């Protein structure tokens, strides 16, 4: 007979204790690790189902930021004439959208973790945190796909236009993974807060969508951070995404202004959001099926 393989990792003390859990800081890290294969397969599912269901397939990931950029160039560049720090407008918007879209897609999908998975969560147990974590990883693939049009547009401006002198790429590009990590953590925190609150109050779904729409304008995606008046600078300090988007421009285009204080505040707030998000999410997941 086939021997059961995981028998090896069942230490004699392997036991699951089920009791009303009143602790706040019991995070099931060990279980998360045991279910790592599920994370991989959920990422695969997201990707395959997105790819199979749409007519354009993965091309959609590329078209979406390109079309948005064209819109931004016309509306904010030509009509409203918002300056872009000397960076060619399409590159400026494309770069900002790259960072912003990753954040917004994570939050939009993550915020509905409980409401969209009622059926699944009501029938089987696994660490619920796997679901928003898988969303973030699968959106990373979308990010990489969206990097392609950016590289093409960057190459065009650098090689064939005079504006190419304004942009450069140097060692700082190596910091992009760190920025992605920060974006992941912050979007995880925000989406955990949002999903936990929508599990309790369903009508917050609409509010969450609205928050993300407004948040875009509170973040220097369509304007440079340098254009924020000094007396409003505290707003940028309170919005971790402001520093992240500006830092993306510095690392990918070599241009931008970011104060050290703003960066530190962004990192501190990111960690606070991620940790508190995980805590509140784990508190909610234990009885969420009784509510949703």
């Amino acid at each position: 007979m086939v021997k059961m393989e995981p028998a090896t990792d069942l230490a004699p003390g392997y036991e699951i204790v089920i009791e009303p859990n009143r602790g706040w800081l019991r995070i099931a890290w060990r279980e998360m690790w045991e279910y790592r294969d599920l994370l991989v397969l959920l990422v695969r599912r997201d990707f395959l189902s997105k790819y199979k269901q749409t007519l354009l397939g993965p091309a959609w990931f590329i078209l979406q930021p390109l079309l948005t950029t064209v819109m931004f160039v016309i509306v904010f560049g030509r009509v409203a004439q918002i300056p872009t720090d000397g960076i060619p407008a399409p590159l400026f918007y494309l770069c900002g959208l790259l960072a912003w879209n990753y954040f917004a897609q994570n939050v939009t999908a993550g915020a509905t973790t409980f409401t969209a998975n009622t059926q699944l969560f009501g029938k089987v147990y696994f660490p619920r945190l796997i679901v928003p974590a898988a969303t973030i990883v699968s959106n990373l693939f979308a990010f990489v796909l969206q990097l392609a049009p950016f590289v093409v547009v960057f190459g065009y401006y650098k090689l064939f236009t005079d504006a190419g002198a304004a942009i450069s790429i140097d060692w700082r590009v190596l910091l992009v993974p760190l920025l992605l990590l920060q974006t992941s953590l912050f979007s995880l925190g925000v989406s955990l807060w949002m999903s936990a609150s929508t599990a309790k109050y369903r009508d917050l779904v609409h509010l969450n969508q609205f928050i993300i729409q407004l948040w875009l304008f509170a973040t220097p995606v369509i304007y440079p951070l340098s254009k924020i008046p000094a007396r409003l600078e505290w707003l940028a300090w309170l919005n971790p995404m402001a520093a992240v988007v500006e830092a993306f421009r510095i690392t990918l285009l070599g241009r931008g202004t970011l104060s050290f204080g703003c960066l530190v505040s962004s990192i501190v707030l990111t960690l606070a959001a991620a940790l508190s998000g995980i805590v509140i999410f784990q508190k909610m997941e234990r009885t969420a099926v009784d509510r949703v």
Partner: protein
Amino acid sequence: MSLASNQPIVEVRGLSKLYHLGSIGSVSLRDAAERLVSRFRGKNGAPPPKPLQHRIPPDRAGSEPNSFWALKDISFDVRQGEVVGIIGGNGAGKSTLLKILSRITEPTEGRAVLRGRVASLLEVGTGFHPELTGRENIFLNGAILGMKRAEIARKFDEIVSFAEVEAFIDTPVKRYSSGMYVRLAFAVAAHLEPEILIIDEVLAVGDVAFQKKCLGKMQDVATREGRTVLFVTHNMQAVRHMCQRAILIENGRVGWLGDVVTAINRYAGNPEGHTSRIDLDRMARNNTGETARLKTLEFLDETGAPIHRVERTQELRGRIAFEVREPIRQFDLAMAVTHSGGERVFSETFTDQRRPQALGSGCYDLEFSFPVQHLKIESYFLTLWCWDGVDAVDFVADIPLPEVVDSHADSYKEARRWGVVRVPVRWTQPSATSEKIALTTP
């Protein structure tokens, strides 16, 4: 084994679960705000908000208004390798117990310790994605149920051939027939190899032949591989065949814990505490019972005296009391008898013999009777439908019929009979013949 022999693999102590009926289903922020406002006003002398009215049996009500003990003080142990059946009526708390042991929700009080890897199967095909192929879904579903990828890969061929879907394994499951879908889903589940397997009534799916195959596989898992199985079902035949012990859950409490036969008899006997009168009003329904409502059912013998068991030679009489709330133009009533194993035995309707009738609102009594000579000395259940000519306006299932008894029967012999009915067959005496019967082999 790694387990100390004196330690049960599943240990449940005082498990209770309180639900707040008002807050099942998430509240909207507006409701919460309104509640807050009215609480303020309440302090200033205005009347407090009127509480929602829920019908909660007094023995299950919590201390707060609208709270309900779905489970109260459940304790039991399961030893390694045991197959334990969990039985009980609708709403008794079986599902809640399963949800807690599967860690889908947490208990309000008490504690359970599970010493081993657990897989729970409350549904087949959990997390199946219609766009993905059979192959992709096997991996996804396996992982959701707690299998490692390597483990699934190793069992992949076995799963596919068990499900009999070899030819379609790279087709998206949305193109599968419902039979194929269920077979594939079950095949994944049947190949789980946890130390503790928790199963809900998933066996009620698929065609009979496949169900048998699944039951066989489950039995294998339990007996040959020494795994522990907790099995919730209405299928008494399955309980009888597979389980060594049974837990009867009644009104959120343990009604019986021990041998299977006693548990089944107690379950089938009379959940209302041995009265012959069954309160249909309180039984579970799905969105029926508004236009007309079945209220009570009383079983009587031929003389009209209430009974809770019936001799096989007699007729069983039942008196149904029902209330018509909105006039019914074409009243009809249907009854069906199912065997405790889940098989349908027969059904009959009021209009089989009488004309459909118009009934105005009000309360009515109606009697039916049938001979029980073809029933076995086993448990049967009754289902009642009330029709208005078009739709079923009320529907109550799983009403236990009085126990059929036969004072002359040999219980050992009776237990070995096949099937769900007994048809007395007439035999002749063997008579000697002169011819020799030649057995020819071609």
